């Protein structure tokens, strides 16, 4: 009986989850499809038109007299229509409709419903993003010269050099601190913990000016060490808070027995706590990595936007066009920049496994 019930619920579960996943997927799917569409089409037709859909197809064109007054009703094949109707398209007999091709030319389309599919795709967007955008510079002699922007590879390496230590360092520091908060009594513990939670809400923008001042004085500006420290500080409150929540729920008996066996706190931490915390480390690690990877503001302030130190998010922001909206390039760039975080997710996902901690944890 319970066995049967479980089976049925799992059938419902699969359907409900599938619906949620579909809803979640639609925006990204739109982006994905758009990234393969030519720039001109993106703003002309919706991305879903690449799927087969019902549409109007022109089967015939009617040339009306050029001097026709459009403010009066227009007569077509014995029936009259207003200009507004023809502008929006009006259905006539047998499912056809009439719509202007060009009212100034007095050219009218007769259309029929049919199945249509928008099949113009291109790799041009990805090419421009990966190898650099091309600019047409008009020359004094009337010609046009093509000037190529730089490619992405340098900024890709820069971003890696920022984000890997920018993830590992704060996580290690936070785990040490969280362990101390949870299992080592010391004076000032409560005060520091409260401060830490309060710091969660401090918008990192308040730190930019004073920190930049110190960095300039110390020569840390524009260096990797500087930006690691910045990302460490901005990520620390959240990571410590999270690691504290996890580590404080680990069973104290393990530590006590290890301690009695003569293990030092450092050994307990590295040999017991860290391995036991892998699921938490993996999940918080992903988030810190994502945040650093996609960060724009911190990198802009502490590293700058010179081509040789630029990170990926800055290159992508530059692609968008100085004031405008090169949507087609952004779509491709968004996918390229998503690639690395998704890889990290796939890599770390295997650590979220059932029973890693057995029944050893109590809530």
């Amino acid at each position, binding site marked *: 009986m319970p066995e049967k019930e479980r089976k049925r619920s799992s059938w419902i579960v699969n359907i409900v989850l599938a619906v949620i996943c579909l809803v979640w997927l639609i925006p990204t799917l739109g982006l994905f499809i758009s990234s393969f569409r030519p720039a001109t089409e993106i703003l002309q037709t919706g991305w879903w038109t690449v799927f087969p859909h019902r549409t109007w197809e022109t089967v015939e064109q009617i040339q009306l007299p050029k001097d026709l007054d459009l403010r009066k009703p227009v007569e077509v094949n014995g029936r009259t229509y207003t200009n507004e109707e023809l502008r929006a398209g009006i259905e006539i007999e047998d499912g056809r409709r009439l719509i202007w091709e060009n009212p100034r030319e007095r050219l009218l389309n007769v259309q029929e419903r049919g199945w249509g599919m928008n099949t113009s795709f291109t790799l041009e967007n990805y090419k421009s993003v990966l190898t650099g955008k091309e600019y047409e510079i008009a020359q004094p002699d009337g010609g046009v010269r093509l000037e190529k922007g730089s490619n992405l590879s340098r900024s890709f390496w820069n971003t890696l050099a920022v984000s890997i230590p920018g993830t590992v360092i704060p996580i290690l520091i936070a785990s040490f601190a969280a362990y101390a*908060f949870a299992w080592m009594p010391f004076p000032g513990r409560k005060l520091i913990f409260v401060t830490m939670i309060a710091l969660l809400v401090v918008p990192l923008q308040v730190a930019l000016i004073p920190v930049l001042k110190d960095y300039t004085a110390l020569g840390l500006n524009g260096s990797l060490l500087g930006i690691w420290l910045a990302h460490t500080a901005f990520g620390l409150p959240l990571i410590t808070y999270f690691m504290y929540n996890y580590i404080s729920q680990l069973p104290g008996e393990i530590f006590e027995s290890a301690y009695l066996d003569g293990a030092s706190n450092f050994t307990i931490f590295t040999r017991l706590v860290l391995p036991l915390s892998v699921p938490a480390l993996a999940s918080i690690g992903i988030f810190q990595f994502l945040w650093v990877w996609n960060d*724009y503001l911190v990198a802009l302030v502490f590293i700058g936007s010179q081509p040789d130190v630029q990170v990926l998010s800055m290159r992508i922001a530059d692609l968008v066009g100085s004031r405008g909206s090169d949507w087609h390039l952004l779509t491709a760039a968004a996918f390229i920049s998503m690639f690395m975080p998704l890889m990290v997710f796939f890599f770390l996902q295997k650590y979220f496994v059932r029973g890693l901690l057995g029944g050893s944890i109590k809530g």
Partner: protein
Amino acid sequence: MNKLAFRGFSIRLVFLSILVPTANLVLHGLIFLFFKHIDLHPLLAAALAVLWGVVGIYFVYLSLNWVVEQYPQHLRQKMLPFVFVGPAVLILGWLLVFPTLRTLYLSFLDAQSVNFVGLSNYVAVFTDRLLVTALRNNLLWVVFGATSCVALGLLIAILADRSSYERLAKTIIFMPMAISFVAAGVIWKFIYYYQPGDEQVGLLNAIVVALGGEPQAWTSLLQPWNNLFLIVILIWMQTGFAMVIFSAAIKGVPGELLEAARVDGAGEIRIFFQIIIPYIKGTILAVTTTIVVFTLKIFDVVMVMTGGQYDTEVVATQFYRQFFMYRNFGYGSTLAIVLLIAVIPIIIFNLRQFRRQGGV
């Protein structure tokens, strides 16, 4: 003899206690200079930098711990916690606490940070129509955004745990987190875009038109509902966060407990509410706190989608504009402090939990 040995020991200790931190400082300073002056291939530089960063931080702890281990037992007990929290406290103190105190100080000064103006910035902030709107919007974000993220995240985590395609589902829900805010802005423009004329390239308007409705400018003219359309973006992006954490927590629920309940004939829904939820309530508190705090300082979504226009302004965007774009340091700082005040209830709540778990 014993005394001598002790003195020798303590001299050695003092020497080590000074030497090791100094050596650390000098070592990393020199590596820092090395990177600054050398011009490597970007790939090699990145690899070396990663190595330095990752190994370096471990080595700092290792060496400091080693020094403490040289001390006698009773001192060691007292010192070790400070080695563990020390680096965190130092970095936070320097890079966050000090700037926050400075902001507090600036909030009592005028726009150019020259004259002391007392509480007049606070008076100005709380009598401004824009701040009232911003606070209302922040409340909307917290109430709708945070609640939906937590509830949906929990629901999806539990569903995924029982489904036959867990990894795929989790990847799909997680995916939006990997997208930067600029890119998310573009994605949602493909949903909300309004275009004059009959061809709509925004999905929502296309659906509305297909159903015979009038296309809308969702994020700008439909006030105050436009805020909800922005909140949907946050839910879409951040539910993955809650889902991943909850998923890990649910996997920590011991199987025997669930089996025992099933044997007793409890339905899945009862198991969820009576076993799983109490079991992971610590995690629920943590995730809720994080997301509430996140929605309180929500900034990028609003900035990218509307720039805070059309009454979608929130406190963080107001702060950014006042402080950096208008260079009105006093007023801007006050706004940041408003956020700190808003978080006090959350701190109190967490503190109670901290105390219950045996914290002092």
